[in-house]
């Protein structure tokens, strides 16, 4: 399946792009063709390699294998600025505007017009911005402070910035994730007009419905590999889902079944309000149970509210959330991590370096951090007790470290993750919440972590594991709950679950513009 198009429409071609991070392949021989005057969509799960590929195209990553051909010439960008100079602009999901500068100042940031005294020529800046905004049909005052605009408007300011750079290729990363339906409509019209002007759009999304309204071609990535690329007329929704999933599961460690036992954790009607949109929820009335010895998998795409659900259970959003928690059928109040830990809940966060570890600490101190009272006698820490505790977990979890005095920063990702798990086990939890426990660690270490999770469940812990890797969640979880845009959309037992059925439930359905926009 290759895109059918006129060869002279081809503006950028990437050939055999590969990129590794610390031994893990993020991209593996990916080919990509971008045509001008078309919307070239790229889809794939979280971690499929979309953003790595975009970072290579925009000069963020300099070291990679493969070729990039722009207008028929081989090219390699040394800096993002160089990519910009060649007419490649990217509009990030998190917008890159300076909130306290005006629209015009943002659009021409770094390239201000100056008068003959070397001072900024505000008049010209504003006039030029006005021209650009008019082209984009955005009726706002260029002197307005950016922070006072809505997200959708800010996005258009970013597009204006891209156009002011004479961008010929505009990359949009999940542009509809934070904007209202009306704004989506405006954005799509804008994209159509850019197309007509011959701009090439690279459109990254996982909202498949959008593709059929706006995209001309679609490229699917999975696990850093190109799965296929096609004209949008030649594929169906189901085809794309099938291309996004469908991996080998043969190498996976599969969790042993456990006998049914009693319920440990029960979550009732958990809600977390949206930080900006009123009457909207990031976590929307979620209820579930976890039994002792059970691993409940939570699957969802970016923005599904998985991490937020775990954070809410752990007491990180006491003011913005509602709902009830029961542990061993007793109602518990959790308004802070301190209370969560006291109740027997442990939370292994997604980002070990930012949230899980104090990197300068030793292995021993890190393991003991959440349960220091256990190594204390008469108000003083006993290093012997601390070492004993740490040594115990280093052996039990097979943590590879030269000594327990080693600084955790120097350990490998997999072993750092084990240290985090050890820290939580030392608090004697009844429930472990795991958020992407194998993110960024290599295959062998992953298998070790799976085995560990399985062992912990066998010992009677209840485990809630968030993962965006389908084969992983299908191998480790006894039950799988699917979240999409904060809501529970499906639940499967391991035997019922198929990759397609899970993915189908995970893809957001809220997009309701089908009829109004099809022209």
């Amino acid at each position: 399946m290759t895109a059918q198009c006129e060869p002279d429409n081809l503006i950028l071609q990437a050939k055999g792009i590969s990129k590794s991070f610390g031994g893990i392949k993020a991209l593996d021989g990916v080919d990509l063709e971008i045509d001008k005057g078309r919307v070239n969509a790229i889809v794939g799960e979280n971690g499929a390699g979309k953003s790595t590929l975009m970072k290579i195209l925009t000069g963020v990553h300099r070291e990679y294998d493969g070729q990039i051909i722009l207008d028929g010439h081989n090219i390699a960008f040394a800096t993002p600025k160089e990519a910009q100079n060649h007419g490649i602009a990217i509009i990030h999901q998190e917008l890159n505007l300076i909130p306290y500068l005006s629209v015009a100042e943002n659009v021409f940031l770094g390239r201000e017009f100056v008068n003959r005294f070397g001072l900024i020529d505000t008049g010209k800046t504003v006039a030029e911005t006005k021209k650009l905004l008019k082209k984009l049909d955005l009726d706002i005052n260029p002197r307005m402070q950016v922070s006072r605009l809505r997200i959708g408007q800010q996005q258009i300011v970013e597009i204006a910035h891209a156009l002011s750079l004479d961008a010929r290729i505009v990359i949009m990363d999940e542009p509809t994730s934070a904007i209202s339906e009306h704004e989506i409509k405006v954005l799509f019209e804008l994209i159509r007009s850019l197309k007509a002007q011959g701009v090439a759009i690279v459109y990254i999304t996982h909202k498949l419905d959008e593709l059929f309204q706006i995209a001309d071609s679609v490229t699917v990535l999975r696990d850093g590999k190109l799965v296929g690329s096609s004209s949008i007329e030649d594929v169906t929704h189901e085809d794309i889902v099938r291309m996004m999933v469908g991996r080998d599961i043969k190498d996976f460690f599969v969790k042993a079944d456990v006998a049914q036992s009693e319920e440990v954790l029960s979550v009732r009607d958990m809600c977390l309000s949206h930080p900006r949109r009123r009457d909207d929820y990031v976590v929307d009335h979620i209820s579930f149970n976890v039994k002792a010895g059970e691993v409940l998998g939570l699957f969802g795409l970016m923005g599904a509210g998985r991490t937020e659900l775990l954070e809410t259970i752990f007491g990180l959003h006491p003011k913005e959330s509602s709902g009830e928690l029961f542990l061993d059928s007793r109602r518990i109040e959790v308004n802070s991590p301190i209370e969560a830990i006291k109740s027997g809940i442990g939370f292994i966060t997604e980002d070990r370096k930012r949230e899980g570890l104090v990197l300068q600490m030793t292995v021993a101190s890190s393991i003991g951090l959440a349960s220091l009272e256990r190594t204390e006698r008469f108000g003083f820490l006993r290093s012997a007790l601390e070492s004993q505790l740490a040594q115990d977990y280093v052996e039990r979890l097979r943590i590879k470290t030269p000594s327990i005095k080693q600084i955790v920063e120097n350990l490998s990702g997999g072993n750092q993750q084990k240290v985090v798990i050890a820290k939580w086990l030392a608090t004697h939890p009844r429930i472990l919440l795991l958020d992407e426990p194998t993110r960024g660690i290599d295959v062998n270490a992953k298998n070790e972590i799976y085995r560990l999770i399985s062992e912990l469940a066998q010992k009677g812990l209840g485990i809630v594991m968030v993962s965006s890797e389908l084969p992983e969640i299908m191998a480790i979880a006894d039950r799988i709950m699917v979240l999409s845009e904060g809501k529970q959309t499906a639940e499967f037992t391991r035997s019922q679950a198929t990759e397609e059925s899970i993915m189908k439930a995970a893809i957001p359905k809220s997009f309701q513009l089908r009829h109004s926009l099809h022209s």
Partner: protein
Amino acid sequence: MLELKNQKQILVKFQSLLALLLMVVIFSICAEGFFTKDNFWLVLRQVSVNTCLSVGMTLVILTGGIDLSVGSILALSGAIMAGLLKNGLEFPAFNLFISFTLFGAVTVGLMTGSFLGFFNGLMITRFKIPPFVATLAMLTIARGLTELWTGGAAITGLGRTFGFLGTGWFLGVPVQVWACAGIVAIFVVVLRKTRFGRYVYAVGGNERAAKLSGLNVNRIKLLVYTLAGALSAVGGLIVTSKLNSATPTAGDGYELDSIAAVVIGGTSLSGGKGSVLGTILGALIIGVLNSGLIILRVPPFWQKVIKGFVILLAVAIDKLNTKEP
């Protein structure tokens, strides 16, 4: 190769100590009268006040904060001790007069310092005011209160007993050096051997991870600023006792010397890394430098310039050796 690396690591670990020894050797050679018993005690006595402040500052900086108010709190605490001791408290409206014993006056002074530190902590944790701003405000507030309390003039004539801490000797060692050594010993143990100490490092190293590990981050910070205030008050006690008077300008600019000591001692301003012993070395380096330059008759203005460059040099060497990303 490995041995070479180890040697370098050891060198890095003891670089402050080496720098101190080097300075002592150089001044002993160049400056007549530097390497004498009298000067030895003089330097230690001069360093003791800064050491008190710097120990508190170390705690604060380890949590990733800063305390600019230590000098002002020192002044106010000292003035309150002196004022209460000499004049007592008078409430003409109620026809009430309270006189204070030495112990009472000192206690109230120490409590004042602790309270102001606690107030700093409260502003920082409860109202989320950045430490720099909160303690900058306290720098002005406490200085103003000192001037109000003293009426802008020194409170003098506090008696011999009160002067013992600042001028007396015990077992051949100045009393203030004993006091200082005691404080250092206590905080070395606190930081190394108690949960609180460990938590101080954790909060500064990664506040988010500390919070998620169930640490009460706000309470730890509150305690740290309170201790910094209390230690400033101890500094105030030593200064007032040494001069046998409390002046409204006491401790002016001391916050900078104590930050310098902490930084020279290898504590990272971003928190989580450093030690009290390092800070002591930093304070000693500043003290030895001061003394050496005075003995060499370097003009006072030049002394400041040189001190500034020493701070830059110390931190630059530290940064070069511990490659931070």
